[in-house]
């Protein structure tokens, strides 16, 4: 430890980091589309779009980890966000672009109501309650008339045109020759914005306070932090991301069912965070990419797919308990 910025990841935007961010943006917005156009693997767009939207939800889960809570309930908010978007589009004719923030805000409000009581719980108790949330959301979607029960909501129109003062910013997706690319770009942009926001949160005072909460809530309270308020705030932001991801999902699949997001998805969001690294803002993004893509690529192994996948996960957690991104720190000779 020679300089004070080292122990906080990404505190200062140094030249190498800036180059890294630029390289990342170029890869996402130029290299990937170029690669797919060259190889003709259009199916990759669907996979990568999914990765982008799942990593938005995983970003939320990561933030709850950052305040020291194990969140296995993000599927509930993704499902809620998806339904909010689907219902607003199909029954009220609201533009998809408007439903994006609305779905997020709705989920954030719901999470404040849910979070106020349950965020008092810690450790495994909080995790258990959140695990139930996804199932509650699924059953609610089955039971409510507005969600159309098990039949779900289908034939949701593609995102329409977004224009401000007559100036078209985003064209109607239905008129596009290649909606797959458009969806990919939309999800990627949202992913980049999400992680920008997350990065900013973590490196502003809010993040420092979250870190103090993660490490010792009592001490945090005695230095004057309103711990209850901060916990709910972080959880609401987390759920906002969940709702946002759900709304994007609706736009891509053009349908939503009570089983669109199940407990398995909630568990996966958590795994993405673990794998990428809980100490790194960009951990969940990398984790999502590796796990989701890895699972897809392993399909060549047929019946051994799950065996290899879970074996690799166990091995990774043994070798790299702090996530894949902790490799960067090792290489730099830090501890």
């Amino acid at each position, binding site marked *: 430890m020679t300089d004070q910025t080292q122990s906080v990841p990404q505190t200062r935007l140094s030249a190498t980091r800036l180059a890294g961010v630029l390289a990342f943006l170029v890869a996402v917005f130029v290299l990937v589309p170029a690669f797919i156009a060259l190889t003709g693997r259009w199916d990759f767009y669907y996979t990568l779009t999914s990765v982008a939207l799942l990593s938005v939800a995983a970003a939320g889960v990561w933030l709850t980890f950052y305040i020291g809570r194990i969140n296995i309930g993000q599927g509930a908010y993704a499902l809620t966000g998806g339904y909010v978007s689907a219902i607003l589009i199909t029954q009220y004719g609201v533009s998809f672009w408007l439903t994006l923030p609305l779905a997020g805000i709705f989920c954030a409000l719901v999470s404040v109501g849910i979070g106020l009581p349950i965020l008092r719980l810690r450790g495994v108790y909080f995790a258990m309650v959140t695990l139930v949330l996804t199932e509650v959301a699924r059953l609610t979607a089955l039971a409510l008339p507005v969600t159309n029960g098990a039949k779900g909501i289908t034939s949701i129109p593609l995102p329409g045109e977004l224009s401000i003062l007559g100036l078209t910013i985003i064209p109607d997706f239905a008129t596009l020759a290649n909606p797959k690319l458009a969806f990919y770009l939309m999800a990627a942009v949202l992913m980049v914005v999400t992680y920008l926001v997350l990065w900013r949160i973590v490196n502003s005072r809010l993040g420092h306070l979250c870190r103090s909460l993660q*490490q010792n809530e009592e001490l945090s309270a005695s230095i004057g932090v309103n711990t209850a308020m901060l916990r709910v705030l972080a959880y609401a932001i987390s759920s906002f991301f969940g709702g946002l991801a759900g709304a994007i999902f609706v736009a891509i699949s053009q349908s939503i069912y009570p089983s669109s997001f199940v407990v398995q998805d909630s568990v996966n969001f958590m795994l993405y965070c673990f794998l990428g690294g809980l100490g790194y803002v960009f951990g969940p993004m990398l984790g999502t990419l590796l796990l989701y893509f890895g699972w897809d690529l392993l399909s060549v192994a047929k019946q051994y797919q799950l065996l290899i996948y879970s074996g690799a996960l166990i091995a990774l957690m043994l070798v790299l308990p702090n996530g894949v991104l902790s490799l960067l720190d090792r290489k730099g000779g830090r501890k």
Partner: protein
Amino acid sequence: MTAILQVKGVTKRYGGLTANNDISFDVAPQEILSVIGPNGAGKSTLFKQIAGFVTPTTGEVIYKGNRISGLPPHKVARMGVVRTFQETTIFKSMTVRENVIVSHHLRSKASLLGFFFGSSQAREDEAEFGKSADDIIDFLGLQAIRNETASNLPQGHLRALGMAIGLATQPEVILLDEPFAGMNHDETMRMVALVRRLRDERGLTVLLVEHDMPAVMKISDRIVCINFGEKIAEGTPSEIQANPRVIEAYLGSEDAAIGM
């Protein structure tokens, strides 16, 4: 004496167990007051009630004329009464300097949204916190370990860091929970000098809970002795040493326990 802090008839019951029974005493401004008593006497419970972590069953704690008992800890801290912790409660994975900086939370003028967008007020705050953190680190003589991760520090430094965290909130009354526990004689004497400096140089009122009798006798202006949840004596160190009820509480080992 105009008291800065008044403990009035504080009683705490947990079911059938009475942890504190009708405890009352006043604390004068810039006084060093120790609360002593055998293990399980209810000292820590009393401290928790003063700092807002536990609400008294009956009775109240008054700080500068305002009732603070029953308020949540962050509000009590905002008013100027801050507790440091028994043992070594610190933010483990932060460096010493980060620990102290984050503890300046109470003094931030910018909103959290302001910090998010990096408003000029937020940047001003950050700069000010950094400077103030360095002052506190210098005050406590922690310069050499400024950028060390807290989890790597030895006991003595951790205790000092806990104090630095408390100081960063700019309290008027600081509650120290066993500041000398587990320290050898030299370390204790250094800590005694440090606690005195808190009062003399920073004008703090210090309340401490402690087992180390020689240190308590050396440092305190006044002492409150608690046994089985009740206050059995209050007075200057020499009065406490001569008090038969105190001697009885530390039964059979008056010389060794009271340290004289």
